[in-house]
Structure formats: structure tokens, C-alpha cells
């Protein structure tokens, strides 16, 4: 009876990414939403704050790479982990399939963000 139960789970990898993403979602994302998605579009900051040249300069730099990591990639893994477990909580789909799709999406879109960054600095 014991033997069939002793398979080690690969969940620590996803949980570590989920936790790191959770910290980023809590610490970095609020400021990012406030400035990029609210204050600037609402015109509460001068228009030059986020003009084309300035935005390129900010994003395609070393701090920009860190920004992509802590506001896009890690929060993506956090979000996809919760969506996967949320689907299980709602008894939707098969967990094995949901897992591949959720983490697969997190990997693909993270790579897409990094590819965009590489194209930007070239």
C-alpha cells in the first residue's frame, strides 16, 4: 500500500515561483498599476512622463529588465498557479491538463516578454 504513494511531487518548483510572484504582486504591482495604468492614462501626471522615447529608455535598460521580471514574469506564474488550483476548486477540467496549460502559458508569455526586451535593446 505504501509503495504506490511515494512519488515525489514537482510542486515545489511551481510553488516557489508562485510565492516569489506573490511577493511581487503584493509589493511591486500596486505601484506599477497606480502609475502606468491609472495616474498617467487619467492625465494626472504630465504627458511627457510616459512619452515614446522616455518609455523606450526606461523599459529597454537594466532596471527595465528587473521591471519585466517582477511585474510581468513572476506575477504571471503566481496568477497561473492560482488559476490552476481555482479550476480544481471549481471541479473544472482535469488537473493534469490544467497544470500543463496554466504553467505552459506562464512560460510562453514570460519568454515573449523577454524576447520583446531583447528586441528592444538591439
Amino acid at each position, binding site marked *: 500500500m505504501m509503495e504506490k504513494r511515494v512519488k515525489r511531487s514537482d510542486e515545489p518548483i511551481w510553488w516557489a515561483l508562485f510565492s516569489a510572484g*506573490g*511577493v511581487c*504582486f*503584493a*509589493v*511591486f*504591482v*500596486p*505601484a*506599477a*498599476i*497606480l*502609475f*502606468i*495604468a*491609472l495616474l*498617467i*492614462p*487619467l492625465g494626472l*501626471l*504630465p504627458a*511627457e*512622463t*510616459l512619452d*515614446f522615447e522616455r*518609455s*523606450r529608455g*526606461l*523599459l*529597454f535598460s537594466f*532596471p527595465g529588465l528587473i521591471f*519585466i521580471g517582477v*511585474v*510581468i514574469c513572476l*506575477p*504571471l506564474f*503566481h*496568477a497561473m498557479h*492560482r*488559476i490552476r*488550483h*481555482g479550476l480544481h*476548486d*471549481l*471541479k*473544472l477540467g482535469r488537473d493534469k491538463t490544467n497544470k500543463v496549460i496554466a504553467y505552459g502559458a506562464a512560460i510562453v*508569455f514570460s519568454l*515573449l*516578454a523577454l524576447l*520583446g*526586451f531583447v*528586441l*528592444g535593446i538591439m
Partner: protein
Amino acid sequence: MAKHVGYFPELKRNWWLKNRYFTLYMVREATVLPLVFFIACLLAGLYSLLQGQQSFQGWLQFMQNPITIVINLLALVASLFHAATFFTLFPRVMPLRVGGKAIPAKWIILGQWFGVLLVMVLFAWVFGRGV
């Protein structure tokens, strides 16, 4: 082994609506939905920057759309709610000790909120520089 001769009702998929605590848990889990929208906005913005001035203007217009603003406002509220839950869970998952004495959870929670504030100031400095 157990001989399950009795009555064993299956847990229905709406179990989280039957208890306030479970509903709040589901709200916590759902905070990632507006987050995904915001991340999609950022990815679109990144690629619009690669495509040129015009494309970027189009992205700015999309960000100014009232529906976009409302969802992103929801994302901000969600991120702060997530922060409130995450910060209280953290000292329970990783109780920190200094010199054999446990740091009170209250301090760890306050420290994390200080981090949020610090990042806000950092963003204000980065965006405000030379404008």
C-alpha cells in the same frame, strides 16, 4: 480498510458559496484575474514600443479607455487585497527568528507594507525625474 456502507455526500462545486470564510478565500484566489488583464496590458505596451510611435499612441489610447481604467482600478484594489492577505500569511509560513527570539508577526506585516510604500516612492522618483 474502511467499509463505506454509509451516506457520503459529494462536495458540490459551489461549496465556497456556503461559508463566508470560503467565499473570502475564493475572492483572494480571484485577485489574479484582473492581474492577468494588467499584465496583458503591459505586454501589449512592450510590443507597441517595438513597433513605433504610432503604435504606442494607440496603446496609450487603449489605456485611456474607461473600461480599461475600470478593470485596472479593480486590479489595483485586488493587488492591495492580495497584499493584505499575503502579508499576514507570510510570518506563519516562515516565522523569522533573531537570536533565538521570534519576531512578532505584527512587525513583519508592517515591514512588508513599508516595502509597498517604498516601491511607490521609487516609481514616483523614476517617473518624476527630469519632467
